[in-house]
């Protein structure tokens, strides 16, 4: 099935394509991981934050006199105390034309703009003492009118949340390609829907955590951070604090879930850095669960009107959409809060041949927590809008929904393809994925089962959703707009004297298996056994420079850097082995930790003998030989802005029409992420991603009242997917490697989340079909389903 030519990856004993368990999971299984809150340092103090209880309020005064005098309290600071100790930040990118935002500060200056915005910080000798003392800070507030609803904030005359910006429209963009009006005019059927996707959030098992340790003696700042991108964070610190490049080190050890949440700049975390600089001692902040709900970035919040035109023969003629998304009072730094909506309108319909496309995007400020990039940025919305319209179009012309997809998905031999929004697609396999899916799930059999059960009053539904996923982004994504975000990554490999290999790489690990994948690649190319590869990540001082792990880039980009570094080190090792053995290096190879004769396979010397000769026995080498047992290579994709992947998901659900409850019976994914380095890890990325999408579709919602007050800020009230409600998930692959890298791997981290909501929403609506009911709001809660059924 693999289409790529034989390469280094196909060497004997290759680990590519093998389900190797993650060596670095052992410490986590034994309770021996090191998350930020596990780190204790001498003179460590703990920061807590007083947060605005109002969505919008003027801070008239803050009296911390009583709090500051309590035993164990080290310092209380407000915005005034930190003024001049940092520079504020603005979440815009120059290539997103017209995007505007206001300067942000570690602590609110004079005015708080969302419930949960940090207003004062208190540092004490323990977290408990700090929390006790916080209650003694007295703030005189003047509550201001809050504008929380994205629709009303854009109404003429609505007060500007950031007065200096003039209005509440942060960003707008339109696309109009082809002859949209003409296509709607000649359509045999036009379907139209209004979609609502609620705000939800990441709910990382480990809450946001940072430990900033400034040593004033040598002006060194070491930051232990629960983050995906240590090098980016270092750049951010250098931009906003008076420190020199050699003086800042960012370390990310174990990270307890991130999913995009821990890649943004948060005011409270910047305050902790400022506090450590101010106090000259280590300061730790670990968000508690309640403050996570009001201070982590939220995701989504879209209202979308959408139409699709279709012909009797089942050709999708045109799509028109209008997306309004609410992002809170600021555009998040440094990735902005406009990429979510931008990706929605870029991606809608991009897996179909339809050439007529119109879209409008409006991104609005509001008095709610900042909204920004979260796993599968924009994808689940684009997928749900497209795929729910496709199902309706199929109904409108009396065609099976699978057949309508078959007639419109871009043909597998039509690539390269450019979508109406301008996305360049290298090589995808939508048609083959759909056929594989219909066979895998026994689509025809399920339809028969559905009909039989319907006759018995059991209402089951089948939902399909094709999708694409953006992976391996190049420098045109962020770097071009001025953000200190690297699109390249580097890998350094060192052969140690005992024949083992130290691999230091700038991509990071939050449990995806990045470290295992890059070790598999390096081991395969070098010809060493996997247990001899030691991987180092998550430290700006110990790895090459690079972007980290986000946007499904760890294996695609980091893996290619590892592959190229391994080729380079292999050449160096063979050059030295050739000198030792008096053989031409080209006639030698490395296999299973031995230098062998390439032609016969005969073992010549062990790899560690090369290491020992190189490091300890230079006296035995010819005088012109200088052993070089380290190699570094970097990689960034340039040919295409992104490596798109594709796939299709299917959902099989039962809806209880009396209670509105949805039972997820089964879920299937057929996905094509190119070269699969480790099937075990790839499948679990997909399954985990699916479940995050199912949470969004069925349970997760940050509920706000009209005053911008969060109504469900606990894990008891905010529902997340738990084991009991989740289905088994069947995963299958097609393999279409990208030809832009030697490895051929694309990303896979967000595919599950991209397509799952669309599949389950289509399945629910399929179950509701006999009742003439339809639900277009996510999450599709029992209450909303009953309302759609007119049973409340």
């Amino acid at each position, binding site marked *: 099935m693999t289409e790529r030519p034989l390469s280094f990856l196909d060497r004997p004993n290759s680990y590519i394509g093998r389900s190797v*368990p*993650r060596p670095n*999971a*052992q*410490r*986590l*299984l*034994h*309770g*021996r*991981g*090191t*998350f930020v*809150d*596990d780190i204790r340092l001498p003179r460590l103090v703990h920061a807590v934050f007083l947060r605005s209880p109002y969505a919008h309020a003027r801070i008239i005064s803050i009296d911390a006199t009583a709090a500051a005098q309590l035993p164990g309290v080290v310092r209380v600071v407000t915005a005034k105390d930190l003024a001049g100790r940092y520079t504020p930040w603005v979440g815009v990118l120059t290539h997103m034309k017209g995007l505007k935002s206001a300067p942000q500060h570690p602590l609110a200056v004079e005015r708080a703009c969302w419930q949960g915005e940090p207003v004062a910080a208190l540092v004490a000798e323990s977290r*408990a003492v700090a929390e006790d003392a916080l209650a003694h800070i007295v703030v005189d507030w003047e509550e201001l009118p809050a504008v929380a609803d994205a629709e009303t904030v854009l109404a003429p005359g609505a007060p500007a949340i950031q007065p200096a910006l003039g209005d509440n429209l942060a960003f707008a963009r339109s696309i109009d390609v082809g002859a949209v009006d003409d296509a709607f005019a000649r359509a045999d059927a036009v379907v139209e829907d209004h979609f609502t996707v609620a705000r939800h959030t*990441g*709910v*990382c*098992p*480990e*809450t946001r955590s940072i430990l900033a340790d400034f040593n004033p003696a040598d002006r060194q700042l070491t930051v232990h951070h629960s983050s995906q991108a240590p090098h980016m964070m270092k750049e951010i610190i250098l931009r906003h604090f008076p420190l020199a490049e050699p003086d800042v080190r960012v370390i990310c050890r*174990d*990270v*307890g*879930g*991130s*999913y995009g949440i821990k890649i943004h700049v948060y005011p409270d975390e910047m305050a902790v850095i400022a506090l450590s600089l101010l106090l000259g001692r280590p300061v730790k902040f670990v968000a*508690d*669960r309640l403050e996570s709900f009001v201070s982590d970035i939220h995701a989504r919040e879209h209202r979308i009107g959408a139409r699709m035109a279709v012909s009797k023969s089942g050709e999708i003629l045109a799509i028109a959409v209008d997306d309004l998304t609410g992002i809170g009072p600021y555009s998040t730094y440094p990735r902005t809060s406009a990429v979510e909506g931008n990706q929605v309108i870029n991606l809608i319909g991009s897996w179909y041949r339809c050439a007529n496309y119109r879209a409008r995007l409006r991104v609005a400020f509001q008095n709610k927590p900042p909204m920004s990039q979260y796993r599968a940025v924009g994808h689940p919305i684009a997928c749900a809008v497209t795929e729910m319209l496709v199902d309706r179009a199929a109904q409108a012309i009396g065609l099976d929904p699978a057949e309508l997809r078959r007639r419109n998905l871009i043909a597998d031999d039509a690539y390269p393809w450019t979508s109406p929004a301008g996305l360049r697609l290298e090589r995808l396999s939508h048609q083959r994925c759909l056929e594989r899916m219909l066979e895998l799930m026994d689509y025809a059999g399920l339809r028969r089962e559905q009909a039989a059960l319907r006759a018995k009053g059991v209402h089951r539904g089948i939902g399909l959703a094709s999708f694409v996923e953006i992976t391996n982004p190049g420098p045109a994504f962020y770097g071009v707009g001025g953000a200190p975000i690297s699109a390249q990554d580097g890998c350094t490999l060192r052969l140690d004297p005992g024949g083992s290999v130290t691999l230091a790489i700038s991509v990071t690990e*939050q*449990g*995806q*298996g990045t470290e295992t994948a890059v070790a598999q690649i390096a081991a395969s190319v070098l010809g060493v056994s996997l247990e001899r590869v030691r991987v180092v990540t998550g430290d700006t001082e110990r790895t090459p420079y690079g972007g980290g792990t986000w946007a499904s880039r760890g294996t695609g980009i980091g893996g290619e850097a590892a592959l190229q570094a391994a080729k380079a080190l292999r050449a160096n090792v063979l050059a030295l082995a050739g000198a030792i053995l008096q053989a031409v290096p080209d006639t030698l190879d490395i296999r299973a930790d031995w230098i062998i004769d390439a032609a016969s396979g005969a073992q010549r010397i062990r790899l560690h003998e090369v290491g020992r000769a190189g490091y300890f026995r230079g006296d035995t080498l010819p005088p012109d030989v200088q052993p070089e047992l380290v190699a570094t290579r970097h990689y960034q994709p340039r040919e295409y802005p992104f490596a798109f992947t594709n796939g299709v998901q299917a959902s099989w659900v039962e809806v209880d029409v009396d209670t509105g409850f949805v039972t997820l019976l089964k879920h299937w994914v057929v996905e094509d992420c190119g070269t699969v380095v480790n099937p*075990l*890890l790839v499948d*679990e990325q997909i*399954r*985990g*991603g*699916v*479940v*995050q999408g199912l949470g969004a579709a069925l349970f997760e919602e940050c509920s706000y009242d009209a005053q911008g007050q969060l109504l469900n800020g*606990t*894990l*008891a009230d905010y529902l*997340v*997917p*738990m*084991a*009991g409600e*989740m289905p*088994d*998930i069947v995963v299958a692959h097609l393999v279409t490697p990208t030809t832009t890298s030697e490895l051929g791997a694309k990303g896979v981290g967000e595919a*599950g989340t991209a397509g799952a909501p669309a599949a389950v929403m289509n399945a629910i609506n399929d179950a509701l079909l006999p009742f003439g009911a339809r639900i277009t709001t996510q999450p599709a809660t029992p209450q909303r389903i009953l309302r759609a059924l007119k049973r409340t």
Partner: protein
Amino acid sequence: MSDAIDIRLTVNGEPVARHVPARQNLVDFLREELGLTGTRAGCEHGVCGACTVRVDGAATRACLIFAAQLDGARVDTIEGLSESGEIADLQAAFHARNALQCGFCTAGMLVTTAELLRDIPAPSRAEIRDHLSGNYCRCTGYHAIVDAIETVARQRCAAKGGT
């Protein structure tokens, strides 16, 4: 301090005596006082299950019980269960099946699972899912965890000569 209490208990088989603040919950006691950082605070109100430890043999939320309540108790954490080898087969199966990603929930998941397999040696997938319903995992989607537990249940039953 009048709001502190003397307790003596056994943690991972070792006798421990401490003078604890009355309000200190078990998860903070384990982490702050004893350096047993394998037990993690996730939600601090008993929903997520990350802090699950064993108290007198029963899986217990360490965020919902005070250290002061545990005079005379026996507490077992992931560190102790790992060192005794009691859950070695579960750990091996979780590893082989990649039934963890970030690993933050894993200690709680293993303690809960050990109790499940003690009470129901051959659980169905539905029973496994039901028993894990108080343990939140954001990474895996649970499928791999259910697989790993099913595997261990089968292995243990086979070792005992079948169910």
